[in-house]
Structures are given as structure tokens and as C-alpha cells.
């Protein structure tokens, strides 16, 4: 399966969904903005973008996404949650209602402080070569705890910033806001492998 044949949905209820669409297209795959649950049938993987998690969560519930997202996850199709998207797929969120529960982490929103504490940092990834990746953290969450089945793909000091459990990938930062596509490429590989398994 070539990348060209892969379709990636980007949940387009609110937030920086256009940037993920551009990123996926830049990698040579097909990207579709997802506004309604039935569209999930058309895609092989899903990105839940950054934005305001409270807003996106309300729209997920209001437009009946929950059941279809659960089905998507049950069928082991890859899902990538960035920032607000991470909050939405987490099993636990400190002081808030639980997320969708697709990855065994406990997260905290706005964990570094307010906008003035937002930052950029060059970080090492566990894949894609030695070159450091410019990670952009905007009112970013933290992963406070991760279960034993969660693979840590990048860290700053003791803070996990990129992690994966089976079909779920999460980042506390915004890979869609710059031109280094290594993380999107990694996600597309996850999708490629999941399609192969299915066939």
C-alpha cells in the first residue's frame, strides 16, 4: 500500500485542523476534514487536532461521535491526538471528566501555566534519525502518569511529550505548526501497517 492510497481524517469541529490537513497532504497522503461521524467510514486513520478540548468535547457529544469513535478505536485504526486531542483520548484527566479512554495515561490540561509560559524546545525523537525536532508547546498539557503498555517516544526532562499505545499516538505539542514532517510520517507508517494487517 503506497502512501498515496491512504486516507487520513482530521476531526474538523474546532481548532488547528487545516494545518494537519496540509501536513498530511505534504506527506503525499489523502486528508479529509471530518465534520460528521459517518465520514469516519471513509478513512484509515484519524487525527484529533489541537484547539480547545472543552469546545471539541462538547461538539463530539452533541453530534453523536462517541459511538463511532469507539468503533474506530475498537477496529484498531490509528488515532493521533495532539494537545487538545491528547486530552480527548486520554483515560484520565486531572480534575475533569474522563476522556475517550483510548490510551492508558493520566493528563493535565494547561499544565505548564498560561500562554505566557508557552515555549519552543528542540527535542530528540525515538525514531526518524538523530536530528532534533522543534516542538511547539502552546498552553500544553502534561502526561502525569503512563501505564506499562505505553511506549515513550520523546521526553523533556521527566515529562513525556510523545507516546504510543498500540493504535493510539499522542503528543503534548504541535507537530502540525512547522515543516518537519517526521511525526506525521511516523503516523502514516502506523496506518500503513494497520491496513496490511487488515488485508
Amino acid at each position, binding site marked *: 500500500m503506497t502512501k498515496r492510497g491512504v486516507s487520513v481524517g482530521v476531526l*474538523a*469541529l*474546532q*481548532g*488547528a*485542523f*487545516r*494545518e494537519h490537513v496540509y501536513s498530511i497532504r505534504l506527506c503525499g497522503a489523502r486528508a479529509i476534514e471530518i*465534520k460528521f461521524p459517518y465520514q469516519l467510514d471513509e478513512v484509515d486513520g484519524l487525527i484529533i487536532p*489541537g*484547539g*480547545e478540548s*472543552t*469546545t471539541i468535547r*462538547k*461538539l463530539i457529544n*452533541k453530534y453523536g461521535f462517541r459511538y463511532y469513535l469507539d468503533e474506530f478505536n475498537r477496529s484498531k485504526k490509528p488515532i493521533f491526538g495532539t*494537545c*487538545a486531542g491528547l486530552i480527548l483520548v486520554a483515560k484520565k484527566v486531572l480534575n475533569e471528566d474522563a476522556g475517550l479512554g483510548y490510551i492508558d495515561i493520566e493528563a493535565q*490540561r*494547561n499544565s505548564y*501555566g*498560561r*500562554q*505566557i*509560559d*508557552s*515555549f*519552543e*524546545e528542540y527535542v530528540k525523537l525515538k525514531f526518524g534519525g538523530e536530528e532534533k525536532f522543534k516542538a*511547539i508547546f*502552546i*498552553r500544553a498539557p502534561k502526561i502525569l502518569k503512563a501505564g506499562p503498555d505505553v511506549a515513550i517516544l520523546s521526553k523533556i526532562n521527566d515529562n513525556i511529550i510523545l507516546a504510543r499505545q498500540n493504535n493510539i499516538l499522542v503528543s503534548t505539542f*504541535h507537530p502540525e*505548526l*512547522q515543516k518537519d514532517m517526521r511525526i506525521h510520517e511516523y503516523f502514516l507508517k502506523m496506518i500503513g501497517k494497520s491496513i496490511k494487517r487488515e488485508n
Partner: protein
Amino acid sequence: MEKGTLKLKTGLAEMLKGGVIMDVTSVEQAKIAEEAGAVSVMALERIPADIRAAGGVARMTDPEIILKIMDAVTIPVMAKCRIGHFAEAQILESLGIDYIDESEVLTPADEKHHVNKWNFKVPFVCGATNLGEALRRIGEGAAMIRTKGEAGTGNVVEAVRHMRTIRDEIKKAAALPKEELMSVAKEMGAPYELVVLVNETGKLPVVNFSAGGISTPADASLIMQLGADGVFVGSGIFKSENPLKMAKAIVEATTHYKNPEILAKVSKGLGNAMNGIELSKIPNEELMSARGW
């Protein structure tokens, strides 16, 4: 580790896209806005309709009110400073506000100069009525633009005018050959480098929301279809009969702005929208959108 970079400032605006930023004057209203799905709230002492009615000098909101609202919600909080009033902006930055709106809704403190926004780590949003004005503000360091509209009127006509003007001017600038850009920059009074950037990319270099007079789900849809990245709703929510219902409806309309069936559904039974003002009834010297340049 770097903080306060342009990427971080414009990045937060990117995260707000497709969302509704609501004016609130109390903790109670801030919680209603968050409950309705606002992506951010603007902490104010009075909403624009009341500022307009009260007259006199409108200033930065009391920090006590701002801090209480910051404590009450988890979404980002914005606050307004007067045009050119960099001391108010410094105070707001020290409170830890997430975005500063250098706003024509307050009485301008400087008729000639806007705040030099590069001096700040906190991002700024500024109003604009045309492309030249938008690029001047971006040149001064604004990380987000909002078309001004005419605040506190419940009348969307100015918001439409400003959005169409900017859109048309971008289209024109994008179609011009390079050698004509300097004279365009001169005519618009805009920084040459930014005119070149618009020419090359065919869009503003920052996110552009719409403000000033949006008061129904249909208004939100209209302005999104004209190319806004999101909307500010000021008086339109808390001057309506049923604020929570109106706020939720505008949030849904902003997401599904291209879908008339959904717009019809969310527009049903909202009660009275705010009482609007016909623009010709406002004396020229009271027009807020003419403040700043």
C-alpha cells in the same frame, strides 16, 4: 527553551480557529460561555452595548474582575487595553492574561501611535477595517487580527463590509506583478515586506477573526462564509433573551457554517436576539470602527 516567540503567539490564535470568543463581565457569565463551548472569553467591565450607552471614557477592566474570571474558567482569557496605552498592556501582561486586545471599543489613549507589541511576550489581537490597517498592526507585532465591525450595535453590516474589503484587497494584492507592490505598500501605508508576503501566499500572515455586530447563528455563518477564521461575539450573547441557548447555537453555527439544515435547527426558538441599532442613527464621532488608523 524559548518563550514569547511569534510562532507561539500566532500558534495560540491557530488553536482558536473555528471557534467563538465571547465577551463576559462576571464569573457567572464566563462559566456560561465555557459551558456553551466558547474557545476563549474576553473579560470586560461592561459589554460594548453598555459602553456605548454609558458614554464617557472607557478604560481597561479592573484587574480584580479579570483575575476572578481567569480563576473561574480553564479556557484562555483575553482582556482589552486602550489603543496606544502600553501601560495598561503591561498591567494586563503582568496578570498573566492569555491575549491582549488593543481595542477601539475602549477610548483611545493615543491618536497617533498603537502599542509596540514586539515589546511583549503576551500575544495581541488588533482590529482592522482594511488590508493596510491589518498589515500595519501585524508590522507592530499583532499576532491575530479581527475585523472591527461596529461593536455594540447588533448590526452585522460593518463586519461584512470589513471582511469583504480585506478579502478583496488580498485578492488584488495576490494578483499583482512584483514591480507594483511598492506602490501598493505606499498607497495602503503598509510595510512592504508584508505586502510581498500577502502577494506570495494570497492570505494574511496571521489568523483573522470577525467582530462587531455578530448576534445570531446566521450572522456567524455569513461571516465565516466570507472567510473569517472564527468570531468574536460581544453584546450579542448577554443582551439576548436566552444567553446560554444563544451562545451554544452560535458555537454550533461557527463549526457547521456551510450547513443550512444545521443552521436552521440551531436557530429555532432562541427567543429575542439583542435589539440592534441602525448604523445611520449613530453620529460619526461615536463610531468605534473609525478609532485607530
